[in-house]
């Protein structure tokens, strides 16, 4: 087989079966809303159908589709910031009430975690616990966390995508980290998930 020959695309009729679930999961991890994820997958396939001729075959069909989906996801965020009020004044209060008393002291007792990142990296179960914890974040905060931490998007870019100020992003990230920390403590570090 000649490797310089581009792989042809499969029949678009099969796309949904071949890639539908993978694209759906990719979108869902970032937008954290099933209906929006479905819409983005549909938009992606439609755009791919129109752009079929521009497929170079240099990347796999899946990678090519994911590339289109990434653009669609960014477009979605940019579009939806125009329809939504920007900064959320309740955010700071929610952190305040759940974790700190009126004087700003911790209301929860933070436990000691005796595990190294290297150890945790080896444990497959840890990642599903982390996903479950991320699922419990309020959707906007989950979006910010996924964009910033999972995709490594620059903070200024995340602000543009979500239509928020940098101060608001820091508050959202603080909320995300504080809630994830607590959830991981309850469901992994203290639940014996770290025991062999």
């Amino acid at each position, binding site marked *: 087989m000649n490797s310089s020959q581009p792989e042809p695309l499969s029949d*678009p*009729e099969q*796309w*949904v*079966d071949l890639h*539908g*679930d*993978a694209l*759906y*999961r990719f979108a*869902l*991890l970032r937008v954290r809303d*099933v209906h929006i*994820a*479905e819409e983005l*997958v*549909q938009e992606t*396939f*439609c755009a791919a*159908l129109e752009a079929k001729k521009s497929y170079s075959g240099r990347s796999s069909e899946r990678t090519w589709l994911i590339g289109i989906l990434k653009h669609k996801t960014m477009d979605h965020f940019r579009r939806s910031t125009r329809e939504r009020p920007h900064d959320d004044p309740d955010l700071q209060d929610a*952190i*305040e009430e759940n*974790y*700190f008393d009126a*004087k*700003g*002291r*911790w209301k929860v*007792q*933070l*436990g*000691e*975690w005796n595990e190294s*990142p290297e150890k*945790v*990296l080896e444990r*497959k179960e840890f*990642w*599903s616990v*982390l*996903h479950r914890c991320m699922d419990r974040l309020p959707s906007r905060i989950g979006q910010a966390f996924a964009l*910033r*931490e*999972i995709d*490594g998007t620059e*903070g200024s870019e995340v602000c543009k995508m979500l239509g928020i100020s*940098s101060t608001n*992003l*820091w*508050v959202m*990230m*603080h909320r995300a*980290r*504080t809630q*994830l*920390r607590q959830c*991981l*403590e309850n469901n992994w570090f203290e639940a014996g998930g770290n025991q062999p």
Partner: protein
Amino acid sequence: MMMLNCREASQLTSESLDHPLSWSKRFALRFHLSMCKYCKRYARQVRFIHQIVDLGRDELEEAWDASGIQMPEDAKKRIREALH
């Protein structure tokens, strides 16, 4: 010097993962952490989360793929029709 409470200290700890803090904030934070057991834990643990997501990006995506989450059948049907 700025005196921080735990809420402010944890906020600055989180912020320091996103952008460099000013000298005076860094100093105030270091002072608070030197005296506060819980905030010190908080700082260690959120850095831990930050680090593990960074190191384990592939594992995180893999675990998500292995979760078996699928697009609902009615959505698939709708998309198949749209592609027709």
